[in-house]
């Protein structure tokens, strides 16, 4: 501690701080603020315009539905895979763990193309079979959900795995010895002890899902009012010189994400306080 205190007021510290603040402002703060000011250039007119346009409302709704469904899938899958990775030893575990990180490193547009290759209605590997069964994946909502779930896949797992490792298995063993079944142990002991990690994971996944663009663009078909999501609408409006409309939707998307991050930081603070109590 003394070490930290001695350096606190040095000129180097101030310079470093200034650099970090400048960097963040120039790269993130200022541009995002400009999105806000542009959206409200003519008062609330642009925002109202969005909500009065049924196609835009459909786009926002589609984005919300896709994000919520993808988050729900990723949460259940993420908790299950985390348990598998932490509590079990099996051949190929490291490969699986590496595969889970893949969606973060692969470009979303590649993800979209890959999904089309497998589920494409006309010449996909699996698509025609589904199509004949009446299930349309590509150019439809299921495809959008899949693409969204794919790109946001690791977020829950990466939050939950370290916490699971840290809490260990003793509490679960104790619960079992007191007569709890596997299911009861999961609900009463395991889940409450990883609760905060799951919450962070969910919020991050939701924020990421709302903003997904590349993968969705490839698989959605971008049909106005049907498969056009909010992010695609932003691009469309921007390219059609409806800058005000583009900024308005962009502002809505950005504010949801900022809200999500705010919620996470508040939850983290609460979680940390509970942990130290």
């Amino acid at each position, binding site marked *: 501690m003394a070490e930290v205190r001695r350096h606190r007021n040095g000129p180097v510290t101030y310079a470093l701080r200034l650099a970090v603040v400048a960097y963040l402002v120039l790269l993130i703060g200022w541009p995002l603020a400009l999105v806000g000011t542009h959206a409200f250039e003519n008062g609330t007119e642009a925002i109202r315009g969005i909500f009065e346009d049924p196609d835009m409302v459909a786009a926002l709704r589609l984005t919300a539905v896709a994000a919520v469904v993808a988050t729900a899938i990723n949460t259940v899958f993420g908790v299950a895979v985390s348990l598998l990775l932490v509590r079990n030893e099996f051949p190929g575990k490291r490969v699986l763990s590496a595969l889970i990180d893949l969606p973060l490193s692969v470009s979303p547009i590649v993800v979209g193309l890959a999904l089309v290759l497998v589920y494409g209605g006309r010449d996909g590997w699996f698509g025609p079979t589904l199509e004949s069964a009446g299930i349309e994946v590509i150019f439809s909502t299921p495809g959008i959900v899949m693409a969204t779930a794919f790109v946001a896949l690791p977020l829950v797992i990466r939050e939950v795995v370290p916490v699971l490792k840290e*809490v260990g298995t*003793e*509490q679960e*063993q*104790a*619960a*079992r*010895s*007191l*007569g*709890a*079944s596997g299911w*009861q142990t999961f609900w*009463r*002991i395991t889940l*409450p*002890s990883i*609760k905060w990690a799951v919450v962070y994971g969910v919020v991050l996944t939701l924020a990421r899902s709302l903003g997904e663009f590349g993968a969705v663009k490839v698989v959605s078909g971008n049909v106005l009012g049907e498969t056009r999501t909010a992010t695609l609408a932003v691009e469309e409006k921007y390219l059609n010189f409806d800058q005000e409309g583009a900024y308005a939707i962009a502002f809505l998307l950005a504010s949801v994400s900022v809200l999500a991050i705010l919620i996470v930081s508040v939850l983290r603070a609460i979680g940390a306080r509970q942990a130290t*109590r």
Partner: protein
Amino acid sequence: MSIEVSGVNKKYGDFVALENIDLTLPTGQLTALLGPSGGGKTTLLRIIAGLEEADSGRVVIEGTDATRLPVQKRNVGFVFQHYAAFKHMSVARNVAFGLEIRKTPKAEVRRRVGELLELVHLSQFADRLPSQLSGGQRQRMALARALAVEPSVLLLDEPFGALDAKVRKELRDWLRRLHDEVHVTTVFVTHDQEEAMEVADEIVVVNQGRVEQVGTPDQLYDEPANDFVMGFLGEVTRLGPVRLRPHDIEVAVTPGSAGALEGTVTRLLRVGFEVRLTVQPDASPTAGGNGGGPEPVSVVLSRAHARSLDLELGSRVWLTPAVGAATVPAMVAV
């Protein structure tokens, strides 16, 4: 008989953790599984609990074959070295856990939890979280939690191992008193021979995956079955052809009894009420030295006795085993 273990084997890869264990523990007793770390005692306890599965052999608890029963059906109470407290639940909810799982009526749960918290002296902490308790309090909470389900056997895995010396001692006495009150068949694992001798009715010495000896603390101390048990239960020294406890050696300052080992005091250390001597025996064919002369003998006597003999560094002494001393033949050095 409350717990019967027969023919239990357990291997971890090539490492033999338990080898053909046969053990019978009577109902209502407080038994210690005593042995060095890695000797297999915790594995044995976990196999009895059902937290670990034996490769072969049988475990019978209260007359029921429990070999294939999962841990939640064995009705055992298990207390972990590091408490395994449910961190997100209050002390009262921790204790109530087993009862709630068993769908006990709410009023009944409240009554039982109240009783148990009384028993472990934690009544005023009922609404605290485990993280707000000290280590000793957490372990008492864990004990109450295990007792809540009225287990047929109570198993404790190094229950005081994570506590500091003073709290350990208090909890040890407290566990003994608790057992005299509750009378549940209890097995606890420890590597501390003093703890085992002080608390247990019966001690099972486990080493390298085998049971070395079973007996009361006195039996083990006075009639150790072998060198290992003798060495593990207390200090041992070698006097001529036998090994015995340092306080079981008679010291004389004049040659008297036949067969006494003659030597010189080379070290004299006073610790509290006792005096520890190191005696270098004179080289003689009967002492059986291996080239470098006979090995030194440790002797412990009371301070008063040492003073009456007027011992000091360089004194000539004659050593004989005390009458009735527990001895085992010394292993012949090769």
